[in-house]
């Protein structure tokens, strides 16, 4: 029984990465109607920016500033991508956006792999979060606990921003009817660019969070992105709360699978995806198109 609690907690930790990443995807899909396949590559860039900030010849910037700087840097990079490429796809079929972002992901990964190889670079856990505490049923590394709490806060803040504030209302309106919103004097293209930047920033933030746990590797995003897409599909494309809840829930389910039948832990998410799509094709919380 104790082991079960431990697995639930571990699942929650992985779930927080799924939640952060699928949240960014959901924001981008919901607001821009783009299936952002470059998300994994941008997540990886977040981790690499944190690594470069710490390991360069000039000044070594640690984990805490990196939590803010990396998402901004990668977010700006994302906004440039949106301005120079993605914006031309507005109004076209989803497939074009998917192909373009998939291509970008391959290029970004290829460039990083060319320079850094595939086995990854080390990034240490910040001193303040080192060590762990004994919860009785398990030894919880403090850093992992921090990841769960922090990502939960970020997820809820994003949800609040989009669903409950004036800015969020503009955004949602702009998705619904861009022409009308523009008639009210709101700069819709700029808002869309900023939204893409926000979604990408969330991915980069997840990248920084995961840097001390996993290796900083060019393929770290590629390994994760397919699962995250499954999460988004299960939660319902474009649903903010849906993707947060599904992210955490799937992390837990995966954790339990690792305990009861480890060999299936890679596939359980996809089995669930198939089941959900068969029963409710719009996803658990999705609205009918």
């Amino acid at each position, binding site marked *: 029984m104790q082991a079960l609690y431990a697995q639930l907690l571990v699942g929650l930790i992985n779930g927080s990465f799924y939640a952060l990443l699928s949240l960014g995807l959901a924001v981008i899909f919901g607001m821009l109607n783009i299936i952002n396949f470059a998300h994994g590559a941008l997540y990886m860039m977040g981790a690499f920016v944190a690594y470069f900030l710490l390991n360069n010849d000039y000044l070594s910037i640690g984990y805490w500033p990196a939590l803010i700087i990396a998402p901004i840097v990668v977010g700006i990079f994302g906004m440039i991508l949106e301005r120079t490429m993605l914006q031309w796809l507005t109004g076209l079929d989803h497939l074009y956006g998917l192909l373009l972002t998939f291509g970008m992901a391959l290029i970004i990964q290829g460039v990083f*792999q060319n320079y850094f190889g595939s*086995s990854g670079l080390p990034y240490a856990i910040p001193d303040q979060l080192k*060590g762990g505490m004994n919860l009785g049923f398990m*030894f919880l590394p403090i*850093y992992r606990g921090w990841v769960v709490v922090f990502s939960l806060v970020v997820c809820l803040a994003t949800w609040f921003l989009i669903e409950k504030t004036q800015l969020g209302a503009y955004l949602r309106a702009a998705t619904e009817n861009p022409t009308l919103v523009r008639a009210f004097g709101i700069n819709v293209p700029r808002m869309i660019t900023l939204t893409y930047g926000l979604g990408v920033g969330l991915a980069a933030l997840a990248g920084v969070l995961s840097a001390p*746990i996993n*290796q900083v590797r060019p393929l770290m995003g590629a*390994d994760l992105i397919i699962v995250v897409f499954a999460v988004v599909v299960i939660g319902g494309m474009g649903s903010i709360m849906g993707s947060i809840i599904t992210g955490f829930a799937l992390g837990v389910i995966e954790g339990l699978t690792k*305990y009861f039948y480890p060999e299936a*832990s890679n596939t359980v998410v996809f089995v669930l995806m198939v089941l959900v799509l068969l029963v409710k094709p719009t996803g658990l919380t999705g609205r009918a198109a």
Partner: protein
Amino acid sequence: MKTRSIASFLLGTALSLTAVSAACAQDKTVKIGALSDQSGLYADLGGPGSTLAAQMAVEDSGLAAKGWKIDIISGDHQNKPDIGTAIARQWFDVDKVDVIVDVPNSGVALAVNNVVKEKNGVYINSGAATSDLTNAQCSPNTVHWTYDTYMLAHTTGQALVKAGGDTWFFLTADYAFGAALERDTTAVVLANGGKVVSGVKHPLNTPDFSSFLLQAQSSKAKVIGLANAGGDTTNTIKQAAEFGIAKGSQKLAALLLFLTDVKALGLETAQGLNFTETFYWDMNDQTRAFSKRFAAKMKNGAPPTMVQAGVYSGLRHYFKALEALGGNPHDGVKVVEKMKSMPTEDDLFGKGEIQPNGRTIHNAYLFEVKKPSESKAPWDFYKLVGTVPGDQAFTPLSESKCALLKK
């Protein structure tokens, strides 16, 4: 009419083929296929570096000056046996490749083993670990150069059991390699009076090991044996440190660890790990000289791993055999027989021999990862702890189930 013309065409082709192979007795062309994981979790320990090692072997052999024409092509098997065999078939059928080298990932390696045998090519495997390549699934076309699971089990594994680690929990990569390494290590543990408490099989390329590590922790086994490789091993070790396993009473046994893995872990995390390799760049003047030339050509300036070094040495020995034959007979069995009849000797692995089952025998070295304070240069990672002579490290012929031995 139509069938007749096809029949005559086939006959003609067959005749011309016999003519060609007769003419090839003094043929001095060789085509090498470097098949590896070019972009996945094993790409740094083999991959482009293995292709480079093959190129250097060709250059250093000096055969070009003697009128030989040697080409190298490379392929990416993506860690998928079906892709690996498809490339191998195409190489033999279309590109007329003579020898396939490297092939990390035991699952792919065993599948390619069958293709090479069927096509009568030469197979010098350096990257794969499974001891089955020279045991139950041995082939007259195969030489297994660098290391194998039997050797890892009988060096690192045995040393740990003898040091008091008599209860084991296995974290095993769920494919041919993990299964072979777990099997061979279990045999050693049992033979030395220890026991295996339990274990867990994880999918290849798992990013998060915390669930598995918790199970290992609650098993109370003294040793957690890592029957995995590459990125999987580094992730396990890093996360084990996070969960306080390294500081507790349990000991991690990295049964297979490469130079690039230590680099990825960083010395802070990796220090003190014990493991076995058959090559390290900083062993002697010859290995240092080779590694310096190699690193200068690598994008990230990395010295060769033992897998890449094995590609180089294996090919050098292959070229020696071809020279002794006076030409390339394009007959895999014949070339491999010649390779087995000559003792191996080169700058990287020293003296050795190839056994009748295809297993290359050379020294194995027990290393310990240095503390950050002991490391003086960027890739200065290992301390030599002990040397195990080849005949003690690898499967004795009396234990081998290879059918080639029952002649």
